[in-house]
């Protein structure tokens, strides 16, 4: 691309940006909306059970999702189908990546990998249980505090990538974290999500009462079905807890598959660094 075209495209983009910002500033909304929109106010006042009781009275408790974390309520209850298909998109992306990866031959492993220095290795060993604890805490408190299944899965996925970097890919494979097992657990998480979503419908077919797909608490018109909001006195917010848990499984093992696919064995890298050569140009 010539210099004139570069300048021209930059000027055109700047003009677009200026027009957009003018429009945003001149429109009725302005940069900041100082009140709250009615839909947001509805979510805020119905999602936490304490507020739904106080503000709306007993007749509207069917609209509550029984979770003080309003964002998670929207993600998994009010707009649950969005998230369901979002999970499907993520699943398809991973399936696509695995499909593209087919036909790449795995390099033959020759010697045990050495990894980084003993200090880093010892610290990493110590880190992994703490990492699992933190990720599980984020997932299991997703209905109470900011966080949830996806964030927790991303946090747990730190463990395989750190093991790959510090020890080697081969170390992870020898410890039993293989692509096949990760695919199995990932599928288990997805099947769990599908089951939680479809159980109201199955129940509806069996009992003859009304229930919606992805229903969490009882809804107006479908009062008979509801997931347990409290279990032994602890707030678990019905289906949100289960969905967070299964999403945690699905996302963490999905990331594990990706890291296993994208990483290159230490042996290969070392031989390429020492010798170089035709086949190493690809890496």
């Amino acid at each position, binding site marked *: 691309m010539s210099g004139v075209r570069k300048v021209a495209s930059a000027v055109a983009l700047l003009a677009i940006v200026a027009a957009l910002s003018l429009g945003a500033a001149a429109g009725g909304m302005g940069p900041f909306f100082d009140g709250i929109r009615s839909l947001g106010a509805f979510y805020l006042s119905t999602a936490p059970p304490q507020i739904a009781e106080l503000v709306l009275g007993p007749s509207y408790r069917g609209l509550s999702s029984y979770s003080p974390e309003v964002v998670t309520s929207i993600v998994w209850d009010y707009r649950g189908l969005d998230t369901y298909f979002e999970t499907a998109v993520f699943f398809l992306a991973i399936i696509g990546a695995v499909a593209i990866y087919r036909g790449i031959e795995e390099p033959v492993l020759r010697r045990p990998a050495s990894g980084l*220095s*003993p*200090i880093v290795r*010892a*610290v990493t*060993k*110590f880190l*992994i*249980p*703490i990492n*699992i*604890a*933190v990720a*599980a*805490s984020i997932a*299991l*408190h997703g209905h109470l505090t900011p966080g949830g299944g996806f964030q927790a899965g991303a946090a747990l996925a730190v463990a395989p990538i750190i093991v790959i970097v510090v020890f080697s890919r081969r170390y992870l494979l020898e*410890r039993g974290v293989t692509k096949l097992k990760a695919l199995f657990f990932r599928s288990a998480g997805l099947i769990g999500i599908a089951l939680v979503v479809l159980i109201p419908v199955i129940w509806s077919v069996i009992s003859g009462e009304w229930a919606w797909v992805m229903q969490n608490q009882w809804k107006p018109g479908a009062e008979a079905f509801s997931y347990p909001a409290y279990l*032994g*006195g*602890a707030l*678990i917010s019905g289906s949100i807890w289960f969905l967070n848990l299964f999403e945690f499984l699905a996302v963490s093992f999905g990331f594990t598959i990706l890291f296993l696919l994208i990483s290159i064995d230490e042996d290969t890298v070392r031989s390429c660094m020492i010798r170089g050569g035709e086949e190493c140009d690809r890496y």
Partner: protein
Amino acid sequence: MNPAKALGPAILTFIAYIVFSGSVSGYDLITGAAIAVITGILVSDFLVTDTRKSLDIRRLGWLIAYAFYYLTIAELKSHLSFAPKVLSGRIRPGVVEVRTHLKTEYGMVTLANSITNTPGTATVDIDPEKQVLYVHWLWVESEDREGVREKIAKPFETFIKHIFEGGEQA
């Protein structure tokens, strides 16, 4: 797998879970215990080498004493003594060889990390077979073997010996 072997990592996981959750309700205790059991079984094989040592109450006492000493006295002293050198840029750097009496891997790693975490000294390399650490020192005070060990490793070594190696001939 060995249940006793899994106990140490499980306790570590449980404490981390409870601290991160910030509450001790029944829900947290039950889920934390479940996660701790699963994690303990998963990671015990490559984390624990000696079963007896992970459950010794005296080691815990030494660990708390060491944490208190290290986080208050040692850190403050080295921060105050090296801040002027860092600010003025007047340094006398060198790489010195520190021979330790520690034998276990975890002990040496703890010593190396303690040395790195105090400003002014940073572990550059480690040789577990020869029990030697190579330390980059911002202000070299002595170059002979005993002097170096006295200045860099001695304050931490006694504690670490008790924590990881039972404290004989400390």
